[in-house]
């Protein structure tokens, strides 16, 4: 039986009842990767042998009657900015081309403990900076729905692999939309959890006050199952929230009666793509039929979110990426006459154009004489954006918007204009600035057959409410059952 299109919960049923083995499943997924990779290039590294060994172990665990998790034996892909012990972790950057982490990220360790099979590392925009995966130093990833289009970014490899059935599920990271926007472009489910909900120990840092790891999955139930595996306090991450984490599947099927949905006027703007607008409005009507109540809410500082983000994120990136200096790890230009020249030439040759642009912008924003005008100003506007959400969530339990203003754009369409590329994150960025959780899921298709994403935002640490809203909508619709023809 062909198993590569199965969700985690469907695979769990197959594996637990011994209808198949993890070895067989993993073999099929590796075959599938071989077949689709020439078309989509979702992976940086495929760990065939390690995956098959993990599958053997999972089969033993499944047969022994020892406790199993819903992820035991299930092939999962990891974005290539998550450290994996002894497995190359590049961030799709030349500067880390041969970097072998000496330890596992906490999320990787937790997945291993569940008995999941780690199938490979996925392509991304270099250092997670981008919205299309075109900034990878190792070639672009294509969208399985139309290989002439981008898969979104920066977790484009993870989203493309999940949509192409090249893994059961994947992890991504989201600093300004990098899980949700590619999930929308590829027609899959992606969740950015609350800041602090998932440990970032072992995630290569981009913007530390915004970064968060989260799942990309084929449906909402799988998203909850992945969250069960990765969420929770970690003493190795000082920004990890010391709160109990829930069983996210437990409350999935509560109905939507009485749920208050906020619709922010600022996210339904003139000139928006008509098909996106229609699909999102239809989704809201479906939720009303399911018992939810809708009301308009205001997020008046939305129009300042992109500007705020590109100061805060680049300033933090400028600091975080100072560590790539050719000394402790990574690439070095040799020979050079002195240390300063070594730093400067190594960084010039090791970083791609977008990463350099952001380092420059961030360094400028933090430089003497400009700090107050840019960085402090942006931090103040961050306060305003966050309080917009605090107010809105007094009147609404979730807020619903489109995930992105358009469906997937064409490869090369925005590469010459950084600002236009930044504006494709206009609906996802505020969530990171406010630190709240948000999920993207498919809510329709364009006439040309491209997926459209719906975004559901929640209060801090209210992932359960977000997931339950998403689940109810998913059960009432068929979008998640569609597959691309690859």
């Amino acid at each position, binding site marked *: 039986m062909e198993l590569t299109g199965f969700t985690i919960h469907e695979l769990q049923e197959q594996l637990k009842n011994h209808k198949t083995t993890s070895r067989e499943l993993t073999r099929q997924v590796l075959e599938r990767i071989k077949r689709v990779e020439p078309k989509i290039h979702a992976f940086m590294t495929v760990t065939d042998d390690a995956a098959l060994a993990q599958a053997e172990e999972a089969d033993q665990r499944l047969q022994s009657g020892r406790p199993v998790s819903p992820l035991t034996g299930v092939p999962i892909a990891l974005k290539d900015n998550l450290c994996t012990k002894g497995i190359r972790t590049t961030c799709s950057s030349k500067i880390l081309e041969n970097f072998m982490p000496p330890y596992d990220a906490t999320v990787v360790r937790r997945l291993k403990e569940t008995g999941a099979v780690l199938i490979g590392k996925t392509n991304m925009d270099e250092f997670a900076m981008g919205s299309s995966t075109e900034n990878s130093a190792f070639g672009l990833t294509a969208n399985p729905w139309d290989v002439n289009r981008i898969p979104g970014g920066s977790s484009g490899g993870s989203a493309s692999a999940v949509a192409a059935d090249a893994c059961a599920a994947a992890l991504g990271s989201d600093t300004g939309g990098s899980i949700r926007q590619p999930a929308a472009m590829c027609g899959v489910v992606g969740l950015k959890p609350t800041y602090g909900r998932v440990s970032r120990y072992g995630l290569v840092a981009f913007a530390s006050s915004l970064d968060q790891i989260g799942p990309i999955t084929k449906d909402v139930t799988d998203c909850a199952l992945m969250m069960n595996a990765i969420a929770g306090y970690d003493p190795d991450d000082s920004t990890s929230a010391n709160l109990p984490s829930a069983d996210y599947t437990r409350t999935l099927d509560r109905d939507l009666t009485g749920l208050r949905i906020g619709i922010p006027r600022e996210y339904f703007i003139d000139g928006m793509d008509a098909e996106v607008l229609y699909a999102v409005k239809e989704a809201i009507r479906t939720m009303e039929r399911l018992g939810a109540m809708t009301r308009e809410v205001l997020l008046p500082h939305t129009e300042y979110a992109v500007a705020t983000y590109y100061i805060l994120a680049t300033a933090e990136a400028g600091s975080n990426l100072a560590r790539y200096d050719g000394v402790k790890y990574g690439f070095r230009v040799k020979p050079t006459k002195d*240390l300063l020249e070594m730093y400067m030439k190594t960084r010039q040759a090791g970083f791609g154009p977008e990463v350099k642009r952001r380092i420059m912008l961030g360094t*400028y924003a933090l430089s003497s004489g400009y700090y107050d005008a840019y960085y402090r100003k942006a931090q103040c506007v961050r306060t305003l954006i966050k309080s917009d959400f605090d107010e809105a969530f007094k009147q609404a339990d979730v807020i619903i918007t489109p995930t992105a203003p358009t469906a997937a754009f064409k490869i090369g369409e925005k590469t010459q204009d950084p600002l236009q590329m930044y504006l494709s994150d206009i609906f996802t960025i505020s969530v990171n600035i406010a630190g709240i959780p948000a999920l993207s899921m498919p809510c329709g298709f364009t006439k040309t057959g491209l997926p459209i994403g719906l975004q559901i935002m929640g209060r801090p640490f209210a992932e359960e409410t977000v997931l339950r809203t998403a689940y109810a909508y998913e059960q009432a619709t068929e979008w998640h059952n569609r597959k691309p023809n690859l």
Partner: protein
Amino acid sequence: MKLSKEEVEHVAKLARLAVSEDEKEAFSRQLSEILTYVGKLNELDTSKVEPTSHVLDLSNVFRDDVVRESLPPVEALANAPDHDNNHFRVPKIIEERQ
């Protein structure tokens, strides 16, 4: 907001980033455009607003000073472009006296 080529050179040096003539040109143009866009923030009066550096209600996080296993030197050095005898090796920093 216009970022001159000289300013680009200054910022690049602060960022320890060598830049070619072409890059100076491109950064000057692109960063000027982005900074003009970002100037939008000045429409807002934030004189009475406290800055947010972090959304979580976190202050310093302490842990007990317990001895834990650390990375063995061999592993810590394994990714270094150059090392010698348990040290990272870099090009010469101190100039010799004439």
